[in-house]
């Protein structure tokens, strides 16, 4: 019983990780209708920047804030400089550009920061009263941070004008322009926010999995699965999807199929679920005029 609880809680902790990456993916999707394959590597690179700042003496929260700001600016810059030329190009062309970015960030991180694993500090005190043997203070803390980000995101899209503008720009750029929305800048904003969310995700993840250039490669696929399982246009769905994937993966590996086929079975289950609910568990069916 104790082991089962451990598995579930560790699955939830992992799910937090997947969920935060999924949030960044949803952010990009909601603002650009593209899935950014380079999200993981961008998050890793941001975390390295934070690490470098902390190494040179910055306090944690100072480095955190600076990294989020830098990542936001970088995200906007990437959209304006690298992605704008291919805005009108076919979808797959954009996908290839994302793959190019992925490879560039990964390679640069390895070159600048080397491949030895690095510890990344956690801002949450180790011996907090809220921690238990099932989950650490950091697990709780990062879950809280993620829920904050989720809430902010939801509120942003639902209740603010800019959020509405972003959704409009993604859904129907032409009409959006007609009502005065500056579509290009909406896209850039979307990228900036996604990069910032990714940076937060990276900094929450790194204390657990250790920082190295390949930190996010495994996590990205699960984040991808979580985002799609929950419905790519739904932030709540992404987070829930993350938790489901995390717990499912752990329970399958521990009790059902053994660790050697855990990946295979987890993915089969996800695909199976999607076959039954093609828009993800919580996504909306898109109806288009023929």
């Amino acid at each position: 019983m104790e082991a089962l609880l451990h598995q579930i809680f560790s699955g939830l902790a992992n799910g937090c990780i997947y969920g935060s990456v999924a949030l960044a993916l949803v952010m990009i999707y909601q603002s650009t209708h593209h899935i950014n394959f380079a999200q993981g590597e961008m998050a890793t690179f941001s975390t390295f920047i934070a690490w470098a700042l902390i190494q040179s003496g910055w306090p944690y929260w100072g480095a955190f804030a600076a990294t989020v700001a830098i990542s936001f600016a970088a995200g906007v810059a990437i959209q304006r400089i690298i992605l704008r030329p291919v805005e009108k190009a076919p979808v797959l062309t954009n996908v290839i550009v994302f793959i190019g970015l992925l490879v560039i960030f990964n390679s640069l991180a390895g070159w600048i920061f080397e491949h030895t694993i690095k510890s990344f500090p956690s801002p949450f005190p180790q011996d907090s009263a809220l921690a238990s043997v099932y989950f650490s203070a950091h697990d709780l803390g990062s879950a809280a941070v993620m829920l904050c980000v989720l809430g902010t995101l939801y509120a942003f899209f639902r209740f603010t004008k800019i959020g509405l503008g972003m959704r409009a720009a993604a859904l129907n750029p032409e009409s959006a322009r007609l009502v005065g929305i500056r579509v290009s800048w909406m896209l850039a904003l979307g990228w900036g926010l996604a990069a910032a969310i990714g940076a937060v995700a990276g900094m929450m993840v790194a204390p657990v999995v250790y920082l190295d250039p390949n930190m996010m490669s495994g996590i990205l696929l699960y984040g991808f699965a979580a985002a799609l399982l929950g419905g790519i246009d739904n932030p709540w769905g992404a987070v829930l999807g993350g938790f489901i994937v995390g717990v499912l993966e752990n329970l399958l590996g521990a009790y059902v199929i053994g660790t050697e086929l855990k990946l295979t079975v987890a993915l089969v289950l996800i695909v199976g679920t999607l076959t039954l609910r093609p828009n993800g568990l919580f996504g909306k069916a898109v109806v288009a005029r023929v």
Partner: protein
Amino acid sequence: MNADADAERIDRRWLWAGALLLVALLVLPFLVKNYRVFQLNLVIIYAIAVLGLNILTGYNGQISLGHGAFYALGAYAAAILMDQAGWPYWATLPAAALACFGLGFLMGFPALRLGGHYLALATFAFALAIPQLLKYKHIEAWTGGVQGIVLSKPEPPISFRFLGQPLSADRWLYVFSLAVAVVMFVLAWNLIRGRVGRALVAIRDHPIAATAMGINLPMFKSLAFGVSAAFTGVAGALGGIVVAFVAPDSFTVFLSITFLVGVVVGGLASIWGALFGAVFIQFVPNLADEISKSAPWAIYGAFLIAFMYLLPTGVVGGLRKLAARHRSRADTVADAAPHVDTSPTNRRRS
């Protein structure tokens, strides 16, 4: 009348160009060293694989991030048949094609329900699952597990010298692959040109209208998957024979992504594009490695992005645009860029 004569002339010109290209490709291995022949052989193999993916993604609009898995299955099919059952290498190709066709056709069924990103995820999952499956201990006796299977390189059946160079094993395999490639390319061309090809393109562009016209959507979509998988499976089998070694580590997700890069760089919905795409994915990483030792993949990424700026519809897309500019306005046919469906649930967004 005039149009017919024009068409015939164009056809004849293409035929001549094709024949000349073939002769050039046949002479090429005797002009270069064995190691280059090996690399060119890999280009031919990748061209077949990329062609397979193009049938599915370019002509039929279904994105697959999992064709590396079919390549792996083809390679393992060939390796197991050669290693365990003693089959001659050329006989493994039809077996690989059949096996992959069957599996691809089956994959078509869940693919029917999934569209765009969701299909991409499903195929991505497939690509991830296959290497893990290949390492599974209960089938280790056949697959060799993590150690893989070591094969012997086939010897050429005849020996002669041409232009001063012998017909080495590498050159023989090159000619063999080239022959297979010609057959596959002709098959693809025939398929795309005919009723099936038109059905696939119709499904890609207007799925609902296509159904309304009486095209059996599920059948054709699964067929596209099956044929595409078969092509890539044949390429995989050839790959296994030429490299003479198969192991799960050769078939990571990155291979699937590489094939997609090949399709887009070469040009969606184009048969010739597969060749250009294959040349890109084989040689540009090596080029990047020469330029920078410390961050070669950053250079490769830069190349990719630059390529997409200059030729967003791939090499063939760029060539088509050039050709269109040279034709008069009246003759310019709707050279609409292929529309790849990425919206959820297969419904096209306006």
